[in-house]
């Protein structure tokens, strides 16, 4: 470590740029891997099972509680204006445009992203990735591209499940517990959600899915290049933590950017 603070700043700048470049190449190779033969269909299926189906429980639990909280909270606020008839609209719009995509991505990052990062990190430190290279088996095609495909496929579906379960949770809280009329809940929801809102939600879920799988697999793959990670088992645990934190923050930042650009 340099002692001169300016030199240290320069070092960090160079490191960040290098890291960004590395990750960009990583992304390109992962996409190239999708088109290489033989295509590992079974592996994609396994990853959908892990990322998608495996996350269903946690997504449903999160969505139900989020929806119910939105229902109660929305009722409390709207009631002040005598506008509780718009509860359905408030709940569904916040879920479809914001909370659905964002919370799904965060849950996937925490559950599947961390596991993917640790898996690749361990494969790296135990030379398994080098071994693939040495057998002339492209590690991207073999390991990473199936994860990308599965994530790009699973995250939007999970988001849709999140939205629907959340809307149902809002219904339970607002209609069953608070006594909003069922008709106005559903009616206001149908009246205010437009195709544009749905599209925004879908675009977000795709982008977030990509960000999570990209950052998590990339961190694991480059476990040796990451500054301050150290060596051995400890480096994998540190890098995994970093991957989850980094992908969560990136998702939140991109959420703002996408909303600003596409709203």
């Amino acid at each position: 470590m340099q002692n001169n603070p300016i030199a240290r700043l320069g070092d960090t700048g160079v490191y960040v740029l290098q890291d960004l470049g590395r990750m960009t190449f990583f992304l390109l190779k992962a996409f190239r891997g999708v088109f290489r033969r033989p295509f590992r269909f079974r592996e994609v299926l396994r990853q959908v099972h892990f990322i998608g189906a495996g996350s269903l429980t946690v997504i449903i639990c999160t969505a139900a509680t989020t929806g119910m909280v939105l229902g109660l909270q929305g009722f409390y606020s709207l009631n002040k204006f005598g506008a509780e008839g718009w509860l359905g609209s408030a709940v569904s719009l916040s879920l479809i445009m914001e909370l659905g995509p964002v919370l799904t991505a965060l849950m996937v990052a925490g559950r599947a992203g961390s596991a993917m990062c640790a898996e690749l990190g361990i494969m790296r430190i135990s030379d398994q990735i080098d071994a693939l290279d040495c057998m002339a088996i492209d590690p991207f095609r073999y390991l990473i591209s199936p994860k990308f495909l599965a994530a790009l496929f699973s995250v939007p579906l999970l988001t849709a499940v999140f939205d629907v379960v959340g809307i149902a949770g809002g219904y339970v809280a607002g209609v069953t517990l608070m006594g909003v009329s069922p008709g106005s809940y559903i009616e206001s929801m149908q009246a205010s959600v437009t195709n544009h809102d749905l599209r925004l939600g879908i675009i977000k879920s795709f982008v977030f899915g990509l960000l999570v799988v990209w950052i998590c697999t990339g961190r694991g793959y480059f476990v040796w290049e990451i500054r301050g990670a150290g060596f051995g088992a400890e480096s994998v645990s540190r890098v995994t933590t970093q991957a989850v934190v980094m992908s969560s923050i990136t998702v939140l930042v991109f959420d703002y950017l996408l909303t600003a650009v596409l709203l």
Partner: protein
Amino acid sequence: MNGPAIEFREVLKVFPKRSGGVQTVLDKVSFSIPTGKTTVIAGGSGQGKSVTLKLILCLMRADAGRIFVHGQDVTDIEGKALEDLRTRFGVLFQGAALFDSLTVYENVSLPLRERTKKTEKEIGDQVGVTLERLGLTGHEGKYPAQLSGGMRKRVGLARALQLKPEILLFDEPTTGLDPVMTQDIYRLFAETQAQEGFSSIIVSHDIPKIFSLADQVIILNEGKMDVFTSPEEIQLSRQEHIREFVRTTMGEIYQSHLVER
């Protein structure tokens, strides 16, 4: 095949240090590895043994100089040519680098399945023969985590042999093994080499035990290389770092070995 299997010409490899400046791991080294023979690369830790292997496999690139494999310049090789080159190598990694999620059978058959057009039956036959020769019959369905260190090395060796490599690279074959297993691995190694006739490179700090196998020994120290063709030559060297190396790594075992002869 005539000429050396691998040749390094003035190869330079440096790593940046965190404190600024660079650390020279290989300082313009030149050496060649003869075809069909066994070469041992030795040296203390951090002296660039693994780096040398990675340079041969193009997992790392040299900062200067050229590297040749059977006369072909592979220093900047890319893409398809690199894939073809790598299929000519068999590698046994330090920890065997078996895939945790695959069984022994799946691990060993992986290169055949991914790199050849053989049918499942042909793959099964070939893998069966190798497993039997290495004493692994009956363990096909086990996962690497269920195997002992020595067994894992054998599975790694079996996997490395599947594509009939011309050159076999062996990274620290005996770390973490007890003396019996070490002997076992070397015996299997010598047997298979006698049958298949590949050139081999063994990276090890475990000099005395592999002298029986080595046709040539390369000792790495502070970026320089010294090439020896017999144990006596090492023992009699007047260079200070070699004497130091002999004292610390060979010690008495080597002395007794010499007496036996």
